[in-house]
């Protein structure tokens, strides 16, 4: 059997499927369980320095076609984050991607430093949170300058851990933002975060379904947007590895987005559709495809669409 392992920023992953941030990420037990179920690695939910209350429920729901969430990045803060990270290291030897977030550019330094000390394998920087200080409350991910400044601060404070900056697709040009964070020191890109935001109401209750009124769209609905984003970024930055994320809902989807340029593949909402079976189902499908293909190693397919 050909195996599925890939290397990402010098870190070995048994398979390229990593749990996306914010899904099943509340405790170390939960994250470690996902590895047991067959994920190649896990991403923690976005960790704040200080406790950050989320939105009241409902914070998420799904349909056949898409999933929406507005959790509000709830988190108990660094004390719990540190504890979770330590416990996670004890529970699993699989690679850990620590996702960090902050509400102001300058706050990214502190959280990067604290998390960097815990030596996760990769630090993922969530810049899709609205910058509380920017004029229109636009996410950092929408501004080349903000995005670059956040990246620099994290790069300077996190130690020698590879960092991947997580981009939003809801921008004029995701490639421009990717370029600017790579110029600012990002080792990798995670693309994409949720699409939108969108809005859904209940017509009988005449209330937005999500307490936050609007929420990010994920799941199969966004897969074409994710493939295009990954393809465009890989084309512009062929040497920057990508954690390709967004709507991956089968092993074939994972292969497709790797061929578009993903080295790792983030999987979140698929768990809504496939439950605990997600990981084994997808890796089995990938293995079967790889067996009948001309490739010896799964990593040979990374960026394949660009090689013709």
């Amino acid at each position, binding site marked *: 059997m050909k195996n599925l392992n890939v290397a990402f920023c010098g870190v070995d992953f048994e398979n390229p499927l990593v749990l996306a941030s914010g*899904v*099943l*990420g*509340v*405790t170390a*037990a*939960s*994250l*470690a*369980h*996902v590895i*047991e179920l067959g994920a190649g690695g896990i991403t923690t*939910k976005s960790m704040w320095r200080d*406790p*950050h*209350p*989320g939105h*009241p*429920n*409902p*914070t*998420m*729901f*799904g*349909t*056949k076609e898409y*999933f929406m969430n507005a*959790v509000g990045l*709830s*988190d*108990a*803060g660094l004390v*719990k984050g540190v504890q*979770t990270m330590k416990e996670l290291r004890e529970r699993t030897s699989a690679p850990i991607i620590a996702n960090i977030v902050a509400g102001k550019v300058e706050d990214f330094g502190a959280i990067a430093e604290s998390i960097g000390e815990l030596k996760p394998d990769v630090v993922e920087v969530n810049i899709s949170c609205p910058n509380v200080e920017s004029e229109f409350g636009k996410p950092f991910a929408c501004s080349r300058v903000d995005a670059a400044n956040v990246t620099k601060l994290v790069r300077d404070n996190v130690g020698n851990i590879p960092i991947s900056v997580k981009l939003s697709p809801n921008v004029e040009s995701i490639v421009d933002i990717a370029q600017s964070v790579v110029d600012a020191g990002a080792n990798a890109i995670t693309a994409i975060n949720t699409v939108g935001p969108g809005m*859904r109401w*209940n017509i*009988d*209750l005449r*209330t937005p*379904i999500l*307490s936050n009124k609007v929420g990010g769209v994920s799941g199969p609905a966004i897969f074409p947007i994710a493939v295009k984003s990954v393809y465009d970024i890989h084309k512009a930055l062929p040497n920057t590895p990508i954690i390709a994320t967004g709507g991956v809902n089968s092993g074939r989807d994972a292969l497709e987005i790797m061929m578009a340029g993903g080295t790792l593949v983030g999987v979140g*909402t698929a*768990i*809504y*559709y496939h*439950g*605990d079976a997600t990981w084994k189902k997808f890796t089995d499908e990938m293995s079967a495809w790889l067996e009948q293909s001309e490739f010896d190693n799964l990593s040979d397919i990374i960026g394949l669409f660009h090689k013709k």
Partner: protein
Amino acid sequence: MGCCNSGCGDKNIHHDINTEPRAFVIDRMWDEAENIKTFVFKGTLHSKPGQFCMLWLPEFDEKPFSIARDYDGEIWLTICKVGPATTQLFKMKPGDRVGLRGSFGNGFSTVANKKVVLVGGGYGTAPLHFTGKCHQDSGSDVTMIIGARSKNLLIWEKKSEETGFRTLIATNDGSAGVEGFTTHILEKLLHEEKIDLVQTCGPEKMMKAIAEMCMKKNIPCEVSVERYMKCGFGICGQCVVETGEKMCQTGPVVSAERAMTFSDFGVFHRGAEGQRKDW
């Protein structure tokens, strides 16, 4: 109509693929005890006993509640007022609308032609009653042990008798039934009779004592492990126990054996941001 006709489905299908809340009208409501009310909605969630639903108070909050009845075109929820959401709900009136989604989670097993003992504490008695009704419809013999601190906090004991369950009461202060704990009654029963299955829903320390008791005696036992729930369908990770299993899907109802592998069972649970809280 028997309860199981509308209810008991495939154990593995934990949720519909569409989890948008649907609107339901409060048909009626009544007091069960101090700070405990039952709310009735017309319709069905196609649930089986032991499953739960998410009850949405629009523009306020949404919380998980066990389903106390889901047959004959009605859904019942028996709810204890403990904080903001339940207080808000207690202010609502018949005709008011709420959102419901579900049913979610793994329910209690239903067995035919067996001798079953159900042990309820607090609002846990209500979903157990639904369970007992299913057992009864399948020809099983049902004993319901109901516990409370004192008589005025006892619920569903009359319904239990009326339904034809052998009904045994324990109150801490002896104001109704025997003085003491449900576990005392259960211990005596298990000693004197051949019981095929014990199911319990109530305070976790009580359930843990029962689980240990049953395991010692090799009697099959199921407990309902409630954890903080946000989504109800396996995505948020809020409800996991220390093995990493999600109580909104693998649970809330699990076997005593499995519950005993959760190092947090009867010890602690977690809050909205995942912070640890001892029971």
